[in-house]
């Protein structure tokens, strides 16, 4: 019962929650939303224990949806998507709780949209039918667009439409590619189906078309990641979005891009993905992202913008790990995806807490906060260190695995990427210094209250995860290993056979 129904329940429950939020009186909206999102998390927790660390998809559910076009409602998770689902359900209650002080107008709309967004994100990660995937991929655009556009900062309209158009552009080309893929496979096998497993097993033999199709998928995912040079929407969206929007955007939406590469980009077009020129190009872009993101972050006066550019750098590591395609590097990439969600989510929440106190995000407006806000300062320090990748925090494990795993395939690139870790220290530590150390010389800062109980409740789970994954990542690695191993094997075998055929 749980096995078959859980993913559908995870998809449907936030929508029910959204209806409840809209139906409730406005002043209860935030409490209803919190209860709904905690319930969603509680519903997802048993996945962790009931998931069998073996290859293949689990918790599958399959039903006919649009028989005329061979479209089915198929959902399931494997060792890759499991963590994305858990990360989503984990971050949403925290961002709901973190929005209590920030969101003061039209609360019902905000929390309802946040819950609808949750449903869309879960849908992206569990969909095993390309049509369903595409629909979910698009559907979650709208709530995010409204969240940025209605509750964002001063340039929210610009940021919202930029976010929308960038993503919409990439995904529509992916839609055409999906159709060409399905029709191409259908003409050869006689079965027109959007089912993921069908397409993965019969995708070989597309020849040169595969390059075009991969290009369309690549564009959609690279914009979402975002990879250099498709990243320009990200700083705007992050800076203008309300805190919860930034947390979700950085924590989960960006992972959809890298998840897309793992789930679709590599397995559907192995021969293209392993083509030396394509590989070299993508690894180069990832490296540029790592170093460029770090360097640009260094000169940002705005705290949120700094975090936004640091995301570009972190996601560069993920792309490097995915494209190195060794067991360690892929596991490391998956770990960074999780860690980035936790650490960057925490950073955005902390930046939001500062903003709620001072209504500015400029680093220069602060200084010496450690004296008035010791708890805040301690948390910010720990989270920043985890984002830099200090050993014994979660950030270290992921980056270390990526670098170790990538070294055999790309020694020089890995060497280059290592500088990214140094750059990370160079932008986060000075920022840390400017905010919480330095003299407490601004009168406005002298009476700032320390973290409230609610804020502690928001941050404590994140801090716990940072330490836990940093010290003992084994339970995560064990669960993702079979899926990562299968992925690498399938891609390598498929690529080898299709090159042989050619």
């Amino acid at each position: 019962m749980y096995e078959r129904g859980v993913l559908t329940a995870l998809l449907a429950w936030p929508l029910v929650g959204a209806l409840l939020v809209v139906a409730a009186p406005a002043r209860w909206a935030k409490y209803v939303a919190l209860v709904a999102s905690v319930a969603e998390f509680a519903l997802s927790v048993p996945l962790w224990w009931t998931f069998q660390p073996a290859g293949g998809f689990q918790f599958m559910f399959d039903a006919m949806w649009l028989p005329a076009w061979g479209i089915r409602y198929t959902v399931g998770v494997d060792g890759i998507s499991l963590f994305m689902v858990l990360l989503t359900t984990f971050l949403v209650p925290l961002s709901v709780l973190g929005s209590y002080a920030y969101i003061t107008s039209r609360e019902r709309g905000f929390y309802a949209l946040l819950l609808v967004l949750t449903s869309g994100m879960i849908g992206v990660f569990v969909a095993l039918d390309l049509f369903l995937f595409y629909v979910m991929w698009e559907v979650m655009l709208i709530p995010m667009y409204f969240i940025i556009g209605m509750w964002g900062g001063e340039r929210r309209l610009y940021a919202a439409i930029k976010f929308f158009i960038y993503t919409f552009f990439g995904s529509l080309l992916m839609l055409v590619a999906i159709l060409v893929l399905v029709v191409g496979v259908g003409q050869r096998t006689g079965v027109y189906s959007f089912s993921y497993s069908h397409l993965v097993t019969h995708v070989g033999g597309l020849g040169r078309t595969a390059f075009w199709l991969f290009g369309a998928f690549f564009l959609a995912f690279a914009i979402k990641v975002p990879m250099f040079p498709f990243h320009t929407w990200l700083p705007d969206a992050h800076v203008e979005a309300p805190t919860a929007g930034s947390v979700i955007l950085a924590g989960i939406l960006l992972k959809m891009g890298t998840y897309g590469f793992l789930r679709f980009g590599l397995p559907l077009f192995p021969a293209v993905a392993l083509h030396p020129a394509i590989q070299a190009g993508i690894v180069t872009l990832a490296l540029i992202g790592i170093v460029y993101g770090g360097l640009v972050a260094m000169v940002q006066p705005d705290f949120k913008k700094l975090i936004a550019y640091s995301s570009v750098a972190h996601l560069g590591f993920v792309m490097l790990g995915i494209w190195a395609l060794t067991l360690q590097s892929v596991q490391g990439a998956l770990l960074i995806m999780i860690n980035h969600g936790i650490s960057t989510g925490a950073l955005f929440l902390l930046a939001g807490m500062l903003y709620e106190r001072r209504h500015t995000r400029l680093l220069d407006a602060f200084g010496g906060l450690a004296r008035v806000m010791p708890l805040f300062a301690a948390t910010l320090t720990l989270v920043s260190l985890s984002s830099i990748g200090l050993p014994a925090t979660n950030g270290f494990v992921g980056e270390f695995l990526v670098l170790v795993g990538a070294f055999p395939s790309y020694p020089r690139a890995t060497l280059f990427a290592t500088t990214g870790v140094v750059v990370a220290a160079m932008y986060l530590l000075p920022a840390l210094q400017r905010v919480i150390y330095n003299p407490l010389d601004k009168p406005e800062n002298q009476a700032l209250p320390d973290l409230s109980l609610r804020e502690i409740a928001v941050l404590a789970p994140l801090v716990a995860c940072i330490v836990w994954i940093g010290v003992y990542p084994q339970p995560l690695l064990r669960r993702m290993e079979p899926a990562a191993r299968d992925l690498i094997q399938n891609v390598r075998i498929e690529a080898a056979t299709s090159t042989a055929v050619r």
Partner: protein
Amino acid sequence: MTLDFARAADVLRGLLPEVVLSAAALLVLLLVAWRHQSPRDQRLAGWASLAGLLAAGVAVWWLWENGARAAAPGMVAVDAFRFATDALFLVAAALTALVSLEYLDREGLRVPEYYVLLLCATVGMMLMAGGEDLMVVFLGLELMSISVYVLAGINRRDPASAEAALKYFLLGAFASGFLVYGIALVYGATGTTTLTQIGLQVRTHGLEQGVMLLVGLALVLVGFGFKVAAVPFHMWAPDVYDGAPTPVTGYMATAVKAAAFAALYRVLSEAFGGVGAWRPIVWWLATATMIAGNLIALAQRTVKRMLAYSSVAHAGYLLVPIAVGTGAGSAALLFYLFAYTLVTLAAFALLAAIGRDGERELRIDDLAGLARRRPWLSAALAICMLSLLGFPGTVGFIGKWYILLAATAGRQVVLGAILVLTSVVSAGYYLPVIMALYMQPEPSEAAHAGVRLGRVAGVVVAAAAAALLVLGVRPNALVELARSSGSSIAVPAPLTAPGATPTGR
């Protein structure tokens, strides 16, 4: 039920929807000649014509349900394609009539003939889309056009409305001239005006390269190009849509266009299916219409003109399945026509409600903050915009998806790519409406005081918005309908090599 057109009773049966609707039009005409004094009389005429539309709908359903078909081809087709398009026209006319009930009252227009003209135009559409003979198609087109010329200018006191009517009349007459001259040339080349006979003549005598036939075909295409407002024959559309009373604009942008598309599809596939020459022409028409329509719509500031250009852009999308010209193409065409009709009528009904003192001047920015005052109305308008944009979860997406699928299966991937890229452009003018509604503060407390959707129009819009969402998730029944109806017109393969299309793929 097999109809033998040699027997008068069977002719009557085959034409039952048209006969019923014509009779209803005459009865309503008698009614308004007798009672035309008060607004109440006018509403009575409206409800009477709705009853007539309903009766015609029952007739269509009866023929469709009994699987009516003709023993031998006649002047009017008896097939599912005709019944499906008839149903579409009737639904569009009924929705227009419902919205007009309150609109005419509010605008102080005392013109009960309005409903008679609406019924006549609908009869014309049904003949046009069902015509198996170029002459019937032409007669239907004229009946429809002349009625709509008057409808466009029905608000005599408004100079813009008069200008729209005159412009529409002049260019419409011009287009009819092209069409009739094209028909004459086709007749000259093949000796017949019956669609299937033309197809047969072309095949048996190898006329597909004949100059007279090709010139005739080109002129026919120009005539239809005017009617569907395809670029470069679209110049009249924005001005006419802008000036006509808003419910009439909705009717013109949906039913009139749908009728022209249905007739175009039937003529091209039955008469000219063996001629390869029109495929590249339609390909270029579709491309030009999608690109120009979307780009020009970006520059519009008023809602009504924006919707006018958006309907030009949608004509481009609708040309794609025609250019593809496969069985899947006809089903996609029918599905998209239905989806587009529903959403466009709802959008124009909402526009009529919002722009209470002159919807021509209503700029997109004037919608600012409307969501706070009128949350339901704003939600409906936002759903309409998303559906026009083709966003998943709405029927507009399924429609575009179907067209894309047909294009991909028909090896027209480039056309599909142009369609999605221009759709991205269209986000640039549909989204500002949503932004204004939800994300901008209202200029003043009283800015939206008088915005009110009438009761009947409210029900229509609510039903349409709900249908947009429901059909966006479960379109199965409608897809089946489009498939079975679309496949009732056989598409002969082009005799020339498929490489003749510009895509070359």
